[in-house]
């Protein structure tokens, strides 16, 4: 086994995550390579010391601080809901109700778009094309009327 591969396996070996074959190959390498053996020993010391790292605790009053902040946040949300409710003259305290009303409005908008939009989409010509075509028809009608008037003038 090469040192590079052995070094990659050392960390997992420390955590006993290697299979039997890998373990045997690595242990054989560690017997032969002092540099890798040294790395293995140092990693073991680090892992052992990490488990013994000092555990710290927050102060007792922290929970009170968190509770106060939750209270403030809830009061703020309640005031906001109450103001909206007064504005619309009906209570919007319930989030579900607000979502239902928004959903209904969105549905109405979509239905309106669907109702008026589909005939436009189904028509072959786009709106600008349709306008141009109407203008041409109007010009053609005036042209025909002019020719007719000219003919009548010549005849009489």
């Amino acid at each position, binding site marked *: 086994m090469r040192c590079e591969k052995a070094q*990659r396996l050392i*960390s*997992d070996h420390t*955590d006993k*995550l290697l299979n039997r074959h890998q373990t045997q190959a690595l242990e054989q390498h560690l017997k032969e390579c002092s540099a890798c053996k040294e*790395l293995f020993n*140092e*990693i073991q010391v*680090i*892992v052992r*010391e*990490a*488990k*013994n*790292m*000092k*555990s*710290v*605790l*927050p*102060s007792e009053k*922290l*929970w009170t*601080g*968190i*509770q106060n*902040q*939750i209270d403030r*946040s*809830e009061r703020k949300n309640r005031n906001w809901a109450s103001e909206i409710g007064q504005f619309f003259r009906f209570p919007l305290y319930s989030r579900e109700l607000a979502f239902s009303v928004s959903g209904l409005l969105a549905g109405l908008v979509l239905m309106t778009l669907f109702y008026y939009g589909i005939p436009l989409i189904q028509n072959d010509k786009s709106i600008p094309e349709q306008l141009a075509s109407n203008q041409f028809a109007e010009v053609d009608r005036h042209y025909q009327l002019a020719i007719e008037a000219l003919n009548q003038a010549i005849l009489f």
Partner: protein
Amino acid sequence: MKSQKEKVGSTAFNGSNRKEFLFHVIRRCQDGDRKAMEEIYSNYKSSLFNLTYRYTRNMSSAEDLLQDIFIKIFTGIRKLRSPEAFNAWVYRTAINACISATRKSGRGKIIPLNEINKPDEAEVENVHFKLDMEKAVSFLPSKQKAVFLLHDVQGFTHGEIARVMKWSEGTSKSQLFKARMKIRGYLKDKRL
């Protein structure tokens, strides 16, 4: 010396027989039950505080950060759909907050760690080593620090870390290896 069980976060909620209890507490918490919130706070405070402390390297900043994390947890818990993901979600929230706080405060800013250990004359060498370990951890990049703290300090498995960090187990293993190598490098430099 602290036992491994004490070091792992949320010990009261661990084990399959406690799962039902945890789900019940989460549901109560989603309904805004203050007692349930306190239950969750009591079970996670130590584990999360040890994380925030090692990111901020300062007791007061660590407490402020822990307070922000719990506010995020209690406001975000209503949106949590699967209680099974609660533990991973809590730690993900905490680590994201820690990384964000580190970015704001600026990487590489060194705050004295005198408060970690008061020198004990009988174990001066050991105390120095512990202090160097703390410093070495403080110099790790944010994500390697998270893996090292969760795996080596708090006893998480690679599978649990993968769920918290949304990584593969392989990535968790390689990040841990890099973290350990960096700590080793730092300690070697110190002793030379």
